């Protein structure tokens, strides 16, 4: 599983990364986590509100700082 976190330097973007890692640790799921700050790549997903959560190329959440439990609910 490949997880991308789209961010543009706001505070809640950084805590989303933290919460995603916590969710993975909690559930024992394995995933590559990458923080994407490149605007061209963010725009290619059509996302206009950061932070965004992308799993295997699918946009699952935008503009929201999810809690670890909310992240787990979204992960396949």
């Amino acid at each position: 599983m490949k997880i991308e976190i789209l961010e543009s330097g706001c505070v809640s973007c950084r805590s989303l990364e933290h919460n995603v890692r916590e969710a993975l640790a909690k559930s024992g799921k394995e995933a590559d986590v990458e923080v994407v700050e490149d605007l061209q790549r963010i725009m290619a997903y059509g996302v206009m509100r950061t932070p965004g959560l992308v799993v295997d190329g699918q946009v699952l959440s935008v503009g929201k700082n999810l809690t670890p439990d909310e992240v787990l609910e979204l992960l396949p």
Partner: protein
Amino acid sequence: MFEWWHRLVSHFVFETLGLSPESAAGSALDFFLYDTVKILVLLAVIIFLITFVRSYFPTEKIRDWLEGKHPIVGHVAAAVFGIITPFCSCSAIPLFLGFIQARIPLGVTFSYLISAPMNNEIAIAMLFSLFGWKVTALYIGMGLLVAIVAGIVIGKMHLEDEVLIKPPPVKPPHFEEAPIPVKERLKEAWDYTLDLLKKVGLYVLAGVGVGAFIHGYVPSELIVKYAGGDAWYAVPLATILGVPMYSSAAGIMPMIEALTQKGMLMGTALSLMMAITALSLPEAMILKKILSVKLIAIFFGVVAVGIMLTGWVFNAVLS
């Protein structure tokens, strides 16, 4: 709406604590307790309502709707959407690029970019609780007008080459958000409201505190001399002063209210409030990543002129 609360506060301050209504301490405490609670309650209610309504208008939907609309319709709609959509300076860049990517004209994008921070929920809530609905309506109406006209002016200047990053003009893959139940929207709106109140609460308290001080101790003559009267420079001075005050809009508004009661003209006050919300230095710094300095300067210049015209017109009409 808040009379009962005022009676309660007065009873507590004057009967329970035994302070005299004539004493400076008694009237200041009475004013402070009454005002802070009234403002915090109204802030909570208004922010909650705006946040709830906005959950039905995600930015992506607005972008899709604006695509290919007639420019004039686009300017008006973009400014109006600015009222209900969220705006923080960190979201300005993806938002800007997303609009450009969808081939929404630069001028229409600016109409949105000017209106969104100006008509943010904190400013509207503070205005409403301090000045009542008339001044709030005036502020929103003039804010929309400035956003629409400034957007049209910027659009006419053909500055497309001043945008430094060109997102590929392909239609981005649209994704569907799963339908969100109303209960969850309400809960999210409530969480957001609490979050925001925690952030601005201290500023509100400090602002009302300074406002109370102005009410009680700063002589009207001083304010009329520097910020009141029909001195032509009051409006541009207020506009320039507003630029560095962005982050603390919640704290500045109570002071402005106190200043208007001491003789600052309403047009000057409107200019100051609009400059605080619409022209922010942090936002300019962030936009520098994607816009040329020239375009940012034009953006600030055009909006500042609009804000000053608003102030002068209101000072002339109301006096």
